[in-house]
């Protein structure tokens, strides 16, 4: 607890806070100059994990606020079936699996980036989503349905931009050529599917095993009792 407080204190005064703000501002440089930006992000250590976490949290919050506060004309959320955890995990879990899958693949294909670097790069690449998404939530509340195409258009643009940035991040962090980068991205997506399959299989087997012991326990109880 004390360490955390000192961490926070570190961030909020002097050097740390200045560095944080600097690397946060750097995110805007990265999204406009992706090739240059992502190279320096890891190789020149201009990014920081704190900012990466912040962007991920902002992304999650933007998504939630988008569901909650976007005008109902453009918002097809059925609240009776809405689960906040499903929405949060719907972003975090694919993100983590993506980083893991990409790390796994790039380790095999002599990528230069570490796990941390991939996470940081991906997080920085997500910047356009909250950046455009948050103003769009406000905008959605002052437009009619016909004008709402702008909302959809800009949000789609943000996603496309972010996807492009992720590709750039992979290229620069691992020092890949374009073709190799695309292949690695596709392989990572396949890898994500494999990971999800294995995890599901694992949990299913574990639950079966647990059920087995539970059954034995019950049986023994029955016999003794």
């Amino acid at each position, binding site marked *: *607890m004390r*360490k*955390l407080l000192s961490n926070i204190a570190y961030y909020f005064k002097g050097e740390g806070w200045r560095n944080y703000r600097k690397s946060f501002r750097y995110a805007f440089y990265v999204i406009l100059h992706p090739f240059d930006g992502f190279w320096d992000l890891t190789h020149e250590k201009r990014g920081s994990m704190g900012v990466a976490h912040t962007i991920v*949290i902002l992304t*999650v*919050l933007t998504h*939630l*606020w988008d*569901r*909650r506060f976007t005008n*109902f*004309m453009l918002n097809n959320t*059925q*609240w*009776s*079936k*809405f689960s*906040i955890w499903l929405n*949060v995990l719907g972003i975090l879990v694919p993100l983590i699996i993506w980083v893991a899958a990409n790390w796994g693949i790039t380790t095999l294909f002599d990528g230069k980036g570490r796990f941390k670097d991939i996470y940081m790069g991906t997080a920085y690449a997500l910047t356009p989503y909250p950046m455009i998404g948050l103003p769009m939530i406000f905008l959605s509340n*002052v437009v*009619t*349905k*016909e004008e709402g195409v702008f909302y959809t258009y800009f949000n789609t643009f943000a996603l496309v931009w972010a996807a492009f940035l992720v590709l750039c991040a992979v290229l620069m962090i691992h020092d890949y050529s374009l073709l190799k980068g695309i292949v690695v991205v596709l392989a990572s997506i396949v890898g994500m599917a494999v990971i999800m399959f294995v995890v599901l299989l694992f949990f299913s087997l574990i639950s079966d095993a647990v059920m087995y012991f539970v059954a034995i326990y019950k049986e023994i109880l029955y016999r003794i009792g």
Partner: protein
Amino acid sequence: MKTTAKRAIVLLMMLSLLLSSLSTAMADDDDWYTYTYSYWGDEMASPNAYAVTNVIYAKDVDPELGSFSNPTSIFTIDDHVFICDTNNNRIVELIKKDGKYELVREIYTVEVSTLLADAMTFSGHVDPTLYNPTDIFVKKTTDKERAEHYGEYKGDPYVYPDVPETKTDDTKTDDTKTDETAAPEDKGEEKSDETAADDSATATSEGDEDGENGENGENGENGENGENGENGENSDGEGDNGEPSTPPPERKENIIKQKLDCDYDIFIADKQHHRVIHCDYDLNVISVIRDPKDDTLGKDFIFRPEHIVNDNAHRTYVQAEGVVNGLMEFDSQGEFTGYVGAAKVVISFFQRLWRKLQTKEQKNRSEQYVPTEYNNLSLDSRGFIYATISALDDQDIYAGVATPIRKLNSMGSDILIRNGSHFPMGDVKWGNITSTASGASKFVDVIAFENDTYCCLDKTRGKIFAYDFQGNLLYAFGNIGYSRGRFTRVTSMDNLDEETILVLDGMRGCITEFSMTSYGKMINEALDLYKKGYYDESAKVWKEILQYNGNFELAYVGIGRALLRQGEYKEAMKYFKNAHDSENYSKAFRHYREEVVEKYILYAVIALAVLIIVPKVIRKIRRLRKEIKEA
């Protein structure tokens, strides 16, 4: 330490959770009798719009009526109810008097004059009997109109050979009093099978002619009937539900209990005699539609009319078995003039792709993608045809590509308005209502009311779905079962008046009479007022409806519309939001936004002016002062 960080994150998320006020889930009970569907496709309980007021069995109306055997169609006009008792080869006419149904007559044969003997001739014999009649259509007309369009039809009665003349006279004149003994005799023969009927027919004098008819005229056709019956089952899956068609009918006397005088024209789809008979109320044949000739029909085409309507221009539209090109249209002369409303072939992308990959042999062997055939039709008061299609792919219905209900104009194009949150397709959720039924609703009949609402009869779950003129589901009710208000196998329905509907159960052979409740009447009233343009009055009724049914989204839209017209934009937005009507919400919002902007634009301009001009002025004044000082 990290856990604390995590806790902080969780706290932040919970803040988000608090911000999003979750609405509570609606009760997910699916055992409602009457219900509607919400915007999200959930069933919402609704007060009963119709209540069962009577269940009518044939034997209750008249003990001599026996029971209905696979009745396939019911038609009402004024107080008259016509029932096609298909497997008994008769049409039963009832009349509702003082809330009770009375038997008017049983129709087994029609009266043929010498003028129309040719048209009624099969293989050299005039056959006036009905053989598995599947539909009847009755409309009001006058002698003048008849003469105009059909010319003279009342000639001398046709004299049947081999029958004593007095016999035919009997059928003409002594219709009112028939022999009581004839009825049981007929019943006995009904039960016997085909060959036995032919053999035993020689026993009675009456049977003589029938025997000949059977030998000469019908034998060939019977063979075909058997084949085609199977075909029908294969292609459609509904057919006559595997029940064998009855043997060709004996020539029976019509049993007339009440002699009424009405100006009606009657059209009978005499299915197994391959003709549509058009006669007046006294059953004198006016014209006959048979043997349509067209290149599209093929050589071995046999005309099997199943359902018919006749519009104000005296065109007859026929839905015939195995005809996939649409409804057959005939002019008043009985000439085939073409098809109307051919249903589009729905081919999915994958089917098309698969088709591309197939070889020629495979293509020939695999099933052809033919347009689906209609299975029923009815005429509304404006002359539009409502038609139903049941042989549709569930997935196409779900995707909204297929159209189980269509409203055809005279050009044959589908003009049904589908503005509801769901397409008029019956049940939106398919799995959980009754465990026995699954899949999309399959409509077997449709009726249109004066106010352009229409009801569809679903045989999958024995349900009736009512839609308004915009295609919004008003209410759905009914179910499979044996209790009152439930059905085993629905075949047809019609409305006795605007507030009473009769539903025919083909398996139990009974008619269920539904009468509209005050709730249903209120909905109709609100719709009528809205259509006439009395929006405020209609809103009042909608508000009353909300008292009964707070789940009814259409009511919110109705009130919202009235508020929108009154200029209560903010309030209107609330109501539209409740009904998930984003189109109207957007309209209201546009006005509301204008209002807000107009209201505050002055302040905004002033504020802007203050921010920009005032500093400038101050600066100028300062400069001036300075200059003055210096000077």
